[in-house]
């Protein structure tokens, strides 16, 4: 038994997520840490559906459905209103998909981060616009299949590195997290909540229908993403100090790719190319994690 695992469930059964949904596991663990005194804002994304139809809400915290581009903006507004009312203890969680974060909501996220709003922003990344029918986003990995990037024209260009964009804002705290490491995820949400200012968590959330995997493999794929170094788990403090949290097993990327239908069209050269890029990105990450952060007396 995991000691001190929070047993309170603020996400209730009956929600409308698909079988094996990663995003639901992310939400469940975020709320376990943030607790009841939280206001959640959700832009257009899978979770607009998952939460249920009016007049119902599968979460036992207030949830505000908002427009696609406004997760960070509405979170900033909620924060300001709470501060005006003297409710500094109440936490604000912006919970958005990759479309609402990487593409459509990037401007408002950049604005909120630059103003250093005291919010927790969690992006559950399922690497495409899933609930509208698996259209590619800028978070879709290179060469992957989606309905708008068919196998004849797979997605070109590498996945956008959102943490680099945010660390460029010198955000106080940002981190990657994965559904396969729930304790690590919860520890990061806790750090995010305790951060004075903007905190961002990029949570890797497998999508069985969109990735063409069977539902029971959700966690397995998330685990392989970390162990093949495709999605390393690390955190960045003040945009400068890097810390890698899980030592990847260093499995070949093929182990990750071959288990997913969205990569089934890849040939040997494609796999080799992806492996090289992953190795390069990992090297960059290692070098950054070894750099001394900036100090006044340097």
């Amino acid at each position, binding site marked *: *038994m*995991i000691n001190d*695992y929070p*047993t309170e*469930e603020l*996400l*209730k*059964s*009956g*929600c*409308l*997520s698909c*079988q*094996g*949904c*990663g995003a*639901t*596991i992310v939400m*469940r663990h975020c709320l376990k840490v943030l607790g009841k005194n939280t206001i959640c804002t959700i832009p257009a994304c899978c979770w607009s559906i998952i*939460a*249920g139809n*009016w*007049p*119902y*809400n*599968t979460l*036992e915290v207030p*949830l505000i459905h908002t427009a696609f581009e406004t997760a960070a903006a509405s979170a900033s507004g909620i924060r300001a209103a709470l501060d005006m009312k003297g409710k500094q203890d109440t936490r604000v969680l912006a919970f958005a998909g990759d479309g609402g974060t990487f593409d459509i909501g990037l401007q408002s996220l950049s604005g909120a981060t630059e103003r250093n709003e005291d919010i927790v922003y969690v992006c559950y990344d399922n690497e495409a616009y899933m609930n509208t029918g698996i259209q590619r986003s800028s978070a879709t990995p290179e060469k992957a299949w989606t309905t708008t990037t068919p196998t004849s024209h797979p997605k070109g260009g590498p996945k956008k590195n959102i943490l680099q964009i945010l660390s460029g804002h010198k955000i106080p705290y940002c981190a990657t997290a994965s*559904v396969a490491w*729930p304790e690590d995820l919860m520890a990061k949400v806790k750090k995010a909540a305790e951060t004075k200012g903007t905190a961002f968590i990029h949570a890797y959330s497998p999508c*069985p229908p969109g990735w063409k995997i*069977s*539902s*029971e*493999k*959700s*966690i*397995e794929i998330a*685990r392989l993403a970390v162990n093949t170094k495709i999605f390393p788990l690390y955190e960045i403090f003040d945009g400068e100090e890097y810390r890698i949290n899980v030592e990847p097993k260093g499995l070949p990327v093929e182990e990750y790719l071959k288990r997913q239908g969205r990569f089934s069209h890849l040939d040997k050269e494609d796999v080799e190319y992806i492996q090289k890029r992953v190795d390069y990105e990992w090297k960059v990450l290692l070098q950054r994690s070894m750099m001394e952060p900036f100090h006044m007396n340097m």
Partner: protein
Amino acid sequence: MSEIKTIVYKTVDEVPEFVVSEATMLWNKTGSWRYLRPGYLNKIPPCNQGCPAGNDVEGFIALIGEKKYADAWRLLKEENPFPAVCGRVCYHPCETACNRGQFDHSIGINSLERFASDHAPVGETPQKVKPESGKKVAIVGSGPAGLTAAYHLARMGHETTVYEADEEPGGLMRYGIPEYRLPNSVLDTEIDAIRSLGVKIECNTRIGNDLSWEDLQSFDAIFVAVGVHKNNKLGIENEEIKGVFSGLELLGNITRGKEMVLGDHTVIIGGGNSAIDSARCALRQGSRVTLFYHRSRNEMPAFAEEIYEAEREGLKVHFLRQPVKILAEGGKVSGIRMRQTMLGEPDESGRRRPEPVPGTEFDVQASTIVTAIGESADLDFLPEAVKTEYRRISVNKFTQTSSLSVYAGGDAALEEHNVAEAIGSGKMAACAIDAQLRNSELTESQIIGKTGAVSVSRYLKHGNAHAESPDSNHVVEFKELNINYFEPQARNKAQKLDMNDRMKGFREINLAYPEDMALKEADRCFHCGICTMCDNCYVFCPDVAISRKPKEEWGYDIAMDYCKGCGICVYECPRSAMFMEEEK
């Protein structure tokens, strides 16, 4: 869980001005989406199947892990009256079966059993589990098979009498296993516990000599476990001369405290465990010892670890050497003539047959010669109705002989000659006799896995350590585990007695695990097929459909109203203690 509530607005006026939710989604029974249904099922760990004595290996290791050492010992005692003996002398096939062996190194089960038995509560003996039956059972032979049957029969409420030809009970555990492997005090403690259940042990009573087979007919059932005591002969010249002993004779004499004068050089013929035990005893008598075996090291039936230790103690082993004739001088052994052999085609035992090489004879000086080339049973006392084959009593898988109410086990009936197999046959006999005397049922479903021993607790319907889950007889294979949840960790090795202290006498060589090492070793166990409440299923469920059972209860509940059947819980179970079946 909060209440299920559905909201119905009958008129427009009832609709709130601000669009706000008023209830959770609990009304939405997502269980109807499911076409596969998960469930919890404790299965059989391979070690449990691999134990010839039918111990709940996983169960007692789990209890050691919880620091419940006395409970671990009690669990062992449910199946086996001799955990302290087995923890010392068993050849541990459970460790060969252990799934962890395919990951890094198997669990040190044998040493953990020894640890549990070392922590037995002083003076405690297991209680009877069934009321008195008024039936009487006779057991011939007080070796591991006979005493195990007596122990379980007494617990099952039968009046049990054991007849032993020797001065003291224990059979080969006393007279065949030297004290440096099994101290007599350890054996005595476990035999006393059997006596305290009301078992009568009549020593110095040989059936066919002091009592006849007819004298046993007043009993309701008879279990024959006489063991094998007739030494096989080499069939060469001068075999009856002074200075030639059988292995069992040498070992027995040392146990009985008879003075043995072996002289300066002892030659051992044979490659089994009694050959190695004889050699190590002779070394402790101060003699130089050489062992000749007619095949190569690969074919040697003795346990590899014992051979290794014997060689460390100074034994010289020569392979592919066969005796031709024992040399005598003045009516007494002076040496032995040997010749070389080479391996030919495999014989009926599957091992390559040794063939003599002509013209390679050589003489070896020797003061004592010990022949240990196997033993067979002395079954002359049995009536014709009890059929035998190749000097072995013929039995079916429930240890029944061709004669009604006569059962047989141990070395006299089994192909494999070792303590654990003998214990297994004693258990089977006890269950079979109880089933006959009480008209109850003994079926193959009470056998652990496909090839294991009978489980007494399953026969008695006790269930296993973690009780409630329904039993399954499926043995969990390595490939069924989710090994992502295990880290490689080296096996903990128990210390052995220092070489300088060994040769001074018969002090026990294998030392017990210290407590911290035992806990570390117990922690390595995968608990294949048994739920340990690791929480994986509960933590990863996206539908919050799995919850821990209320306090003090073991396991989890699945809310089938909401489980969508994604299968994550089953896939992420590290130890395959769950299953998935099609929704009916």
